[in-house]
């Protein structure tokens, strides 16, 4: 039972504003004459963080609390304790801080706003460095949305976003996984004998068929998370794989957007991960997801098959 006074439209509007303010804040704080990219030791979290990572999160929290009185907020930079009901938000205003620091792109500002009593996700949002803001609306679950801004006129526009259908075999697909840290990379590459053997075969084919029409086109990228999920929607990559588990703030906004846009989401036993399951999981934001997100059923099944036990 909902116990807040705000309409869904109002909440989505505040969500979009929060993301836009965070992106604006990040860009301002990382200007050459600013200190936003300095790393600082945070006693409470017991870890090093970019100043801008901590501060953008704090600004977003302050803004949300101002606009949506009584909202409970969780985030990697604050706390991941379980929501206790009512209006709630899980924020990661700088997802991909290492990539921002190195100016490698693929970072984003992400948020999920939910009614933790119902429970239901009211909106999921991902803002990209391009300042495009992708979001979902409960009024139309058949697509994702994107808010763009014309650089010349400064006019905003809302568009519906649906993935283009594409059937692609794994041997020709662009596949991503989170492999930037040594542990994650080795965990993935040694995950199953089946996967290792398959990769060896494709590699041999790619070499032997180098000049042939049907040479495998597979590419592998060691990036995952919300920004890559937007890339999947936009047709730049075909699948994202995570075997050891990513926390809700790193995946839920992207999951919701990708599902609404038409992507296929499976767990590692090839069962669909539904919006209902995602909603239940986010109530405890420290929950993790192991998953395959793909542009088609066939591709998802092929990948899960290789990740299964040998």
């Amino acid at each position, binding site marked *: 039972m909902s116990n807040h006074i705000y309409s869904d439209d109002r909440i989505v509007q505040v969500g979009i504003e929060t993301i836009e303010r965070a992106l*604006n804040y990040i860009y301002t704080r990382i200007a050459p004459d600013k200190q936003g990219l300095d790393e600082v030791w945070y006693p409470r979290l017991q870890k090093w963080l970019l100043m801008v990572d901590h501060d953008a999160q704090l600004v977003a929290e302050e803004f949300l609390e101002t606009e949506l009185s009584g909202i409970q907020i969780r985030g990697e930079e604050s706390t991941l304790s379980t929501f206790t009901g009512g209006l709630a938000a899980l924020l990661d205003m700088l997802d991909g801080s290492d990539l921002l620091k190195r100016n490698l792109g693929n970072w984003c500002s992400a948020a999920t706003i939910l009614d933790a009593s119902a429970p239901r996700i009211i909106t999921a949002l991902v803002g990209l460095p391009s300042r495009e803001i992708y979001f979902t609306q409960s009024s139309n679950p058949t697509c994702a949305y994107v808010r763009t801004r014309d650089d010349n006129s400064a006019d905003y*526009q809302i568009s519906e976003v649906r993935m283009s259908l594409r059937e692609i075999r794994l041997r020709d697909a662009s596949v991503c996984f989170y492999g930037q840290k040594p542990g994650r990379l080795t965990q993935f590459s040694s995950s199953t004998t089946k996967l290792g053997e398959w990769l060896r075969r494709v590699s041999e084919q790619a070499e032997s068929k180098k000049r042939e029409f049907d040479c495998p086109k597979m590419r592998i990228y060691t990036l995952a998370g919300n920004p890559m999920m937007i890339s999947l929607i*936009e047709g730049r990559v075909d699948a994202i794989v995570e075997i050891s588990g990513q926390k809700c703030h790193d995946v839920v906004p992207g999951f919701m957007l990708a599902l609404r846009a038409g992507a296929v989401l499976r767990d590692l036993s090839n069962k669909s991960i539904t919006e209902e399951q995602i909603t239940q999981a986010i109530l405890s934001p420290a929950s993790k997801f192991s998953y395959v997100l793909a542009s088609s059923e066939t591709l998802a099944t092929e990948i899960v098959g290789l990740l299964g036990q040998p």
Partner: protein
Amino acid sequence: MDSASEMFEVRKLRPAERKVAADQSLAKAPRQLSPQEAKEMAQRGYKACIEEGLSEDYAELYRRETEQILQKSF
């Protein structure tokens, strides 16, 4: 099939389909915060920094930068 099509096949990425939404009520700039609102939000953040165990210098840098940024229009 024309002669050009017979000579080569084209491969390209397939971006998402975008359709301008009928409802454009969300197509607007964030509201401009008043100087007072910006000041109060930055001040609350300052207190949060201190409560988190960050130094006063850090909290003051946060407050100063944040107040300035929040007052800017989009």
